[in-house]
């Protein structure tokens, strides 16, 4: 089935306002199955609103979002675990919501927890007994255990140390290449966007509108650190990026150095 009809997320002429304030204006893009699209832009630019509209967490008032994926999952910037449930129950939350029986959902939650480096004794703990990094692992496990074909991420790596960031990103890269997982994610870290995405959407603020789309042709799993650095440097010197993020450019500095 999936081979015959690849799923997609199509956003057409999407606009949104909160009261009199325009948050998003005329957004158009398409996310195909097995692809990763990231949205970058300054804070307050409506990135989160865009993601919530795509996830159906907000009602669409103007424009269209066409989502043919079977199962989507969301991971937030903060882990958003239920404090009164154990790690195991937290991971299994989405499965329970989907009506999976207790035995089955616990089994699946246990299986995925190994992949995220959670020990069996961690599963019995409550969130406040876990470190911040552990909680974010749990949050990721909760999102991926429902086997989504579309994953929506709202700056999920921003509060993590570099080691954990890399670990979680590698799991995602693996899922994208093996399971044809599609990801739409928000970030303010250009290097992260370059490492993970096929397309980078540049969103300008006030009102949020799509300024430019950068495409990176090199397959994600083939991107080396050197490649990521040089691509990021190229992006950072792109006039539209400089303009949107209001970067001050030091002309005498060596381009591509950082």
């Amino acid at each position, binding site marked *: 089935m999936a081979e015959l009809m690849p799923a997609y997320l199509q956003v057409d002429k999407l606009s949104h306002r909160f009261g009199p304030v325009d948050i998003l204006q005329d957004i158009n893009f398409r996310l195909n199955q097995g692809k990763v699209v990231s949205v970058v832009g300054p804070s307050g630019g409506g990135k989160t609103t865009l993601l919530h509209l795509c996830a159906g*967490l907000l009602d669409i008032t103007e424009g269209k979002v066409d989502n043919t994926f079977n199962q989507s999952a*969301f991971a937030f910037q903060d882990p958003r675990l*239920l404090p009164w449930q154990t790690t195991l129950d937290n991971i299994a939350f989405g499965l329970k919501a989907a009506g999976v029986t207790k035995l089955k959902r616990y089994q699946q939650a246990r299986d995925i927890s190994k992949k995220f480096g959670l020990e069996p004794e961690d599963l019995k703990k409550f969130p406040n007994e876990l470190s911040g990094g552990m909680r974010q692992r749990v949050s990721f496990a909760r999102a991926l255990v429902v086997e989504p074909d579309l994953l929506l991420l709202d700056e999920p790596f921003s509060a993590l140390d570099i080691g954990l960031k890399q670990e979680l990103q590698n799991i995602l890269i693996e899922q994208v290449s093996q399971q044809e997982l599609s990801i739409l994610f928000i970030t303010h870290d250009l290097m992260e966007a370059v490492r993970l995405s096929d397309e980078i959407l540049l969103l300008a603020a006030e009102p949020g509108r799509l300024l430019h789309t950068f495409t990176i042709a090199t397959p994600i799993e083939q991107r080396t650190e050197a490649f990521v650095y040089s691509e990021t440097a190229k992006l950072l010197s792109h006039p539209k990026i400089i303009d949107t993020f209001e970067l001050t450019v030091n002309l005498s500095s060596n381009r591509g150095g950082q």
Partner: protein
Amino acid sequence: MKALYNILKNFPRYLWSGWGAMASIFLFIALWEFGHYIYGDLILPAPKETFFRLAVMLSSEDVWQDVQITLQRALWGFFISVFIGSSLGFLAGLFATASIMSRPIVTILMGMPPIAWIVLAMIWFGMGDSTVVFTVIVASFPIVFIGALQGTRTLENHLKEMADSFNTPLLMKLTDIYFPHIFSYIFPSWIAALGMSWKIVVMAELLASSDGIGYRLAVARGLLDTESALALVLMLVGSLLLIEYLLMEPIKREVEQWRN
């Protein structure tokens, strides 16, 4: 069911942790004994005599009848205030206007001394059951109301959003998110209200009733029978300690273990 099992399983270890508390109670009794040597029988009867009197009391059927009457009044008042307080607090918490409007009223209710309510209730209802139960209700209602109100007001949109992202059905949102959150606020308020009920019921009985433990206290005062008065106080404090430490605390530990 599992919670009940855990409570029973952890109970022996919990009891064992009570030695420190026992030591401090015995120290208190020693001080009492010391006071007795200084002030004599009339002012402060000896602990031994008092405990002996308590034992005599507990072997008489009349006293048990009064205990039962007092307990009934306290529990009626408690359950009614829990029911009304929880449901009204929950409703008020759902609407911003209602919660803003109810705040000052609750502050008035909390600030009003129970003794003033007793006087009013005696005028309204006369001497007897309804006066006592009424006083218990008005004294414990605001505590429960505030607990329920705050529990409902502080429901987080973040967790709701997370649940929505998984298309969580409403029933599961209630059982997994809303209820545990509200319960975490409401349960401590129930415990506080139970303690309040137990104290208020005796006070109300002392002034406005012709039976119950409070009434017996009034009689002991009238006869200058300090020993009986102290024995009754022991009974009240003892029962409160038993309820608090043997019933409430183990439950609290089980249902709130995610907090610490």
